[in-house]
């Protein structure tokens, strides 16, 4: 082994590095991350008046993806067809998924069906779900006599 700075300070050096690694691990936990239990995995964004759902669906045909909204629930249906390699050829590896999927999620508020907007770009689906006007909290003014 070579005589290096890190060897001279031996244990302390490694300890410092270990702390660095640990602090990085903890900082990763600061995002509200949860493991997906259903396919496709979805991220939920909100600003109080609107929820935005994003999902990674690479290779899915946006024209054949079905998005429907009823009351509080959003349903996304779609499929991915395996790419045609011309019949011949042998697989070295096959890791990408194929087939159809359906996922339904329920939001904590009524969705304004007329203003729902969906966008698909670079393999990422983004659905904007505005909260229905009737569902929004009404401000009550206090009168004094």
């Amino acid at each position, binding site marked *: 082994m070579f005589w290096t700075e890190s060897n001279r300070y031996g244990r302390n050096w490694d300890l410092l590095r270990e702390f660095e690694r640990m602090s990085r691990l903890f900082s990763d936990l600061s995002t509200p991350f949860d493991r997906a239990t259903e396919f496709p995995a979805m991220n*939920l964004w909100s*600003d109080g008046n609107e929820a935005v759902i994003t999902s990674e669906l690479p290779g899915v045909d946006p024209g054949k993806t079905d998005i429907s909204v009823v009351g509080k629930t959003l349903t996304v249906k779609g499929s991915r067809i395996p790419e045609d390699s011309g019949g011949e050829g042998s697989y070295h590896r096959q890791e990408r998924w194929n087939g159809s999927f359906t996922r339904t999620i329920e939001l904590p508020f009524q969705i304004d069906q007329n203003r729902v907007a969906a966008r698909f770009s670079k393999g990422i689906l983004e659905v904007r779900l505005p909260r229905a006007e009737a569902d929004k909290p009404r401000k009550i003014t206090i009168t004094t006599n």
Partner: protein
Amino acid sequence: MSDTAKELQKKEASTPEGIERTRPHKVYTPAADIVERQDDIIVTADMPGVDENTVDITLEKNVLTISGTVAPLSPGSHRLVFAEYGVGDYHRAFTITEEVDRDRIHASVKNGVLRLVLPKAAEAKSRKIEVRSAA
């Protein structure tokens, strides 16, 4: 769910101990299909969030490296309240045994899927020896 099992979680790429990447994002290994045909090898990789300007492909000696950068998405003033997947860059490297014709490599990105066509070099094709079953 369909008949085929789907990987629910993206796989994070491993980094050597003590070495950090310059960009502080997470790095994932894109799921890939590799099909070898008579004249070429086709590599397909799922890289959502990547387009033709942010994907980088290098072939050095026989190591094919695919990397892609993804700009963290934030829809307006919205806050991320619940996350089931992480967003980050992509990195993956393969060793290719066949001799590849570098000048004719074709790469395209569509809907977040990278498709690479690596044509086999002419000399590699001719070197192939056909094995026949003995009568």
